[in-house]
């Protein structure tokens, strides 16, 4: 049994087919074929500190004025399955503005764009695997998956880690959001404890007085759990 099989069997990772409507014609019908991890899989793209301008981690800057909405600090630690830090790894992030609108040509939600907010960010973890963004709390928005469907506020995250096997694209949610119970994408992860790992924690110590609310979101990259099968 591979890690992927195990995670699907125990509900710790999404199944292939799900009430999330878009899966119906896009989810493969064959099981993915398990292969040994060769040098191809044990390597992967590396984008370190030289790739990213420190200003790219502050989504509230770079425009003529301040964006609308509730300012947040989003910080956390990226670790491997053994709890060790994943240093110098690229994190890319995208999100709606405070009104729930993406700066994206395909977003038809009739909520306002914010001329002072793009919603795209990048950062690289430090030597201890820590990262930190400044942003605006994103808004909920409607979609057409089912009647009166609304996505809970979320932030999309893309991470690399040290190899192809640690590639992760996920979404981070906010604690206490009543829409979480109704969201098929969040609930595509069947296991409650696993699902909760997608929810950031409010962090009083990260919160800055008179400035911004702090949320902590730690990430575990799973690619090194299994003994490599190369030999």
């Amino acid at each position, binding site marked *: 049994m*591979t890690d992927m099989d*195990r*995670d699907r069997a125990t509900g*710790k*990772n*999404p199944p292939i087919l799900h009430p*999330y409507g*878009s899966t*119906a*014609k*896009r*989810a*493969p*019908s064959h099981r*993915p*074929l*398990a292969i*040994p*991890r*060769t*040098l*191809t*899989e*044990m*390597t*992967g*793209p590396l*984008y370190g500190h030289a790739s*990213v301008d420190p200003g790219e981690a502050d989504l509230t800057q770079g425009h003529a004025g301040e964006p609308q909405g509730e300012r947040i600090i989003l910080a956390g630690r990226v670790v491997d399955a*053994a*709890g060790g830090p994943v240093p110098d790894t*690229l994190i*890319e*992030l*995208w999100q709606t503005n405070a009104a729930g609108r993406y*700066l*994206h040509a395909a977003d038809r939600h009739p909520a306002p764009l914010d001329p002072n907010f793009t*919603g*795209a960010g*990048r950062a690289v973890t430090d030597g201890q695997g820590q990262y930190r963004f400044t942003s605006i709390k994103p808004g909920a928005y409607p979609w057409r998956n089912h009647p009166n469907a609304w996505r809970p506020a979320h932030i*999309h995250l*893309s991470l690399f880690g040290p*190899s*192809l096997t640690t590639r*992760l*694209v996920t*979404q981070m949610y906010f604690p206490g959001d009543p829409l979480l119970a109704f969201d098929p*994408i969040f609930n*595509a*992860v069947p296991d409650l404890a*696993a699902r909760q*790992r*997608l929810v950031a924690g409010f962090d009083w110590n990260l919160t800055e007085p008179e400035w911004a609310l702090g949320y902590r979101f730690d*990430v*575990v*990259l*799973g690619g090194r*759990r299994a003994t490599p099968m*190369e*030999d």
Partner: protein
Amino acid sequence: MADEGLEPTPDQTVGPFFHYVLTPHAYPVRSLVGNDLTQAGVAGETIRIEGRVLDGDGSLVSDALVEIWQADAAGHYAHPEDRRGTASNAFRGFGRSDTDATGVFRFTTIRPGPVPGPGGGTQAPHIAVTIFARGLLRHLVTRFYFPDEPLNGADPILALVPAERRATLMLRAAGKAHYGIDICLQGDQETVFFDV
């Protein structure tokens, strides 16, 4: 081992709105990774790959993201796990392309060399491919192989693929140094995806 250590953060779909950070060519955001992997000074044969992503109905998928990772012309990866020496300096081996309104993705790169395989063997030249899209709760992983490559017959990964499905991994020659391929997410011609 798998039962020890921390549980991983689960995957979630990339959704349809990734372009303005991951492939921001139409947006006022700096692009970090593009679809042209070649740069001045990179050794090797420049090739173009133009492929399509299709769903289970054969409809073109116009909101997918395709990432490629590959060795250089000498078969070296630009990564410290490849301990045989450095890859050619200018070649990073990583590219990204979104699919356009017609479901097409495009890369300009160099033909990779053969790379080491399990147990001291050799893998035929190949490109590792990762596909993200709305409707995929986790990304898919596959490979592109070259149709005119004698080493394919001894490739240890191709050998694991049922013979009748191997063709789904083969680039098809579309001209001089120009290749095409269809990534079929579902259906009769479904591409072979790997659990790595």
